């Protein structure tokens, strides 16, 4: 339908409005911490946070921790995604596997992710392997769910075409189910990346051996260094944001044939 002549606020207006609250917050923060209204231990001035940030970058702590976290994240994700796709394909394609396993999987999935940490730490200890297993577990769940859905929702009509051309089993999987399931699988991988990053931080909190952003935050808390904690939080959010956006962009590029 043609657009009505309603005055829609332009993008710049939206931008201006969006900046109001954050700016107000920052100003209030500065005033609060400098004037001593709030205990500076609870609310360090922005310059202090920036200063700490610079310090941590300069002495190599921050990049080191970030690199360690990212490495775990990607390893765990790769493991979880790989296993996830295989399991998802199995559950989706084989009705026997579905009947035997799906309900149990759904049941296990109900256990809050972090509740697995004590068990995993009992089995694997506190080192890298344990963390990567946990991250893989976290990433695998959305991958499995979305892969199953992708395979199941391959429309009957397309399946019939495959039958008419007498596709063999492997041909069906390769030429029909996999491409048809790809959008869902990509969604699953996207979610898996998000969960993996969350799990990385969680793993670093609870299995606190070794460097990492999570470790940085815990250290900040133990030493009552609010600025360090805040820095850690900002980094966590930033990485999460970048990962999410990149995944979206890749997803869109790979699935251009879909008119979503």
């Amino acid at each position, binding site marked *: 339908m043609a657009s009505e002549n309603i005055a829609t*606020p332009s993008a710049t*207006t*939206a931008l201006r*409005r*969006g*900046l*109001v*609250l*954050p700016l107000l*917050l920052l100003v209030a923060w500065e005033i609060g911490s400098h004037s001593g209204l709030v205990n500076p231990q*609870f609310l360090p001035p922005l310059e202090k946070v920036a200063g700490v940030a610079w310090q941590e970058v300069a002495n190599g702590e921050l990049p080191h921790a970030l690199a360690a976290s990212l490495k775990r994240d990607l390893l765990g994700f790769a493991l979880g995604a790989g296993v996830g796709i295989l399991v998802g394909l199995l559950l989706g394609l084989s*009705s026997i596997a579905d*009947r*035997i*396993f799906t*309900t*149990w999987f759904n*049941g*296990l999935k*109900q*256990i*809050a*992710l*972090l*509740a*697995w*940490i*004590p*068990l995993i*730490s*009992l*089995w694997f200890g506190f080192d890298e392997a344990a963390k990567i297993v946990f991250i893989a577990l976290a990433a695998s769940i959305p991958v499995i769910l979305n892969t199953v859905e992708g395979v199941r929702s391959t429309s009957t009509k397309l399946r019939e075409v495959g039958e008419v051309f007498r596709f063999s089993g492997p041909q069906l999987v390769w030429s029909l189910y996999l491409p048809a399931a790809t959008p869902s699988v990509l969604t699953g991988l996207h979610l898996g990346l998000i969960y993996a990053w*969350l799990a990385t*931080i*969680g793993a670093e*909190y*609870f299995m606190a051996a070794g460097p990492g952003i999570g470790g940085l*935050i*815990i250290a*900040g*808390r133990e030493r*009552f260094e*609010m600025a360090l*904690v*805040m820095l*850690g*939080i900002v980094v*966590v*959010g*930033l990485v*999460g*944001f970048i990962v*999410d956006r990149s995944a979206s962009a890749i997803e869109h590029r790979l699935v251009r044939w879909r008119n979503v």
Partner: protein
Amino acid sequence: MSDAILETALSTRRAFAARGWREWSGTMMLLALITRAKATAWLLIFPAVTLPIWIIGSERGWLAEQILPRPADVLHTLNEMLASGELAQHVGISLLRVLLGFAVGAGAGLALGAAMGLSRRVDDHVRPLFTAIAQVPALAWIPLAMLLLGIGETLKIVVIAKAAFVPVAMNTSAGIANVPRALVEVGETFRFSPLQMLRHVVLPGAVPPIFTGLRYGLTHAWIALVSVELLASSEGLGYLLVWGRQMFWLDTVLVAMIVIGIIGFASDKLLAAVEARLQRWRTDGV
């Protein structure tokens, strides 16, 4: 072949259920029962295979007790904890925290989401900050919150509330903003006041997405509860996990995990049932 029978039986059963149980015939009930029995039989294959292996394995000492306790031990611990009321106590504390935190967080989420959905201005002002906060998972906020609030109940409620707040606000604002303009126009032709518009057009249409948001919020609230209890608590299910872990009592850990799973499952099913009732108008129970 059996798939076809299953489908027929299930769809017939649904159709009958929609019309009321009076129209059931004995054959239909038998058919439905058979299909149910078949499905259950398949389900039992997995435990039927793994359970004996577990039992025999722990008897024969194939795996250390710390890796996999004897099933009998797990059951025994479960019984003990139930009988002594210890389990009930921990469950009670955790449930209370989740309920309170969820109520606070979801309430705030509904309010803000509604404001954002109804007013473009509010949305413009709030969304960037909201998105920034949403990017940081509740987990990351915990140490900050611990520094500010200590490790008392307030900490737990606040963390849980934050976890529930984000998905509820997001889904509520989307649900309200996405009510089709076509239906709003219908309301305009009948001269609906803003209140009438809200009550008869916007809110009913937004209920499904709002409910999705509430379900996500509850899931996140649970996860947040476990996180915060793992880090900073002396009671509750999360504490049980930590304690069991520290004492190498795997059976306790397993019991706690099972209880967490059951409660998570039950609360999700409950919300799903409420959602289904509210959405009878969508599909006929398919």
